[in-house]
């Protein structure tokens, strides 16, 4: 399966899914006007990957600056697919990155952790500005 790579824009995140390494990353901003249009191909790719994955270690890094509430629903959908992937015998870890003082972003990650049966790791990132 080929990697999925989507370059970032002001409103959409970098998507970098490398299936052979089990390393997936979504980072940057996510506030497209139409989240369905942006996330549908991402979900389709992930579903295909999970249908094939066997005994694989998978790490998904979320490293957002901003995301809107419609993207929030798709983030949950991505996590649900990963949860199914784990039920099929794969080992999945979600790493949720946030700036130290950004309690809203931290709480958003905690809400996901509470809504889904996946291992979460919270990573505090340095403010580079």
């Amino acid at each position, binding site marked *: 399966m080929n990697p999925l790579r989507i370059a970032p824009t*002001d*409103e959409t995140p970098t998507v970098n899914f490398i299936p052979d390494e089990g390393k997936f990353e979504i980072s940057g901003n996510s*506030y*497209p*006007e*139409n*989240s*369905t*249009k942006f996330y549908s191909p991402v979900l389709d790719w992930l579903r295909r990957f999970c249908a094939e994955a066997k005994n694989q270690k998978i790490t998904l890094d979320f490293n957002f*600056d*901003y995301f*809107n*509430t*419609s*993207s*929030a*629903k*798709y983030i*949950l*959908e991505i996590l649900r697919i990963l949860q199914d992937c784990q039920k099929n015998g794969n080992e999945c870890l979600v790493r949720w990155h946030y*700036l130290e*003082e*950004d*309690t*809203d972003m931290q709480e958003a990650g905690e*809400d996901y952790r*509470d*809504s889904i049966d996946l291992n979460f790791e919270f990573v505090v990132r340095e*403010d580079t*500005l």
Partner: protein
Amino acid sequence: MTDKQLLYAYNGEMSNPVLNKILSTIQTKLSALGEKRNVVKNVNTILIECCQNLIYHAKDKDTLKEDFFPSVSIYKDAGGYRISTRNVVAGEDAQKLEAYLAKLNAFSPEELKNFYKERLTDGKISAKGGGGLGLLNMIRASKDGKLVYRFDPVNEQYLMFTLSFLM
């Protein structure tokens, strides 16, 4: 001093390119006021919801005459930042919206959190790509857990919906 200071106001057609300019301007203005990065980020996160609400709920082109353009403004006062938006809504939509806003305003912070989670996990996305969480996000970000709103008639069909909250 309790004077309100207008930081920014926009009136016109709303789109994501316009939103990006607004975010960039607000970032510059708040940084110049010495606000910490997380305050700037919180204000901009909510502005994204506000402006995208205006995009999703913009009516057909025939309503997009100058008097009906949506607007967004942000004031600074002693209590924090007050964000205000205006857009045209159809009469029948106004009734539903008013009932929904009254429901949100009656919720406690805990109830709002639970309702947010319920809405987040319901899997519903509108045809325009909205998640139905914008107003919930605004009220959760507000200092007093309240959204202030009014509806003023503009003609037989439409009302001007004004929404504001303090954060």
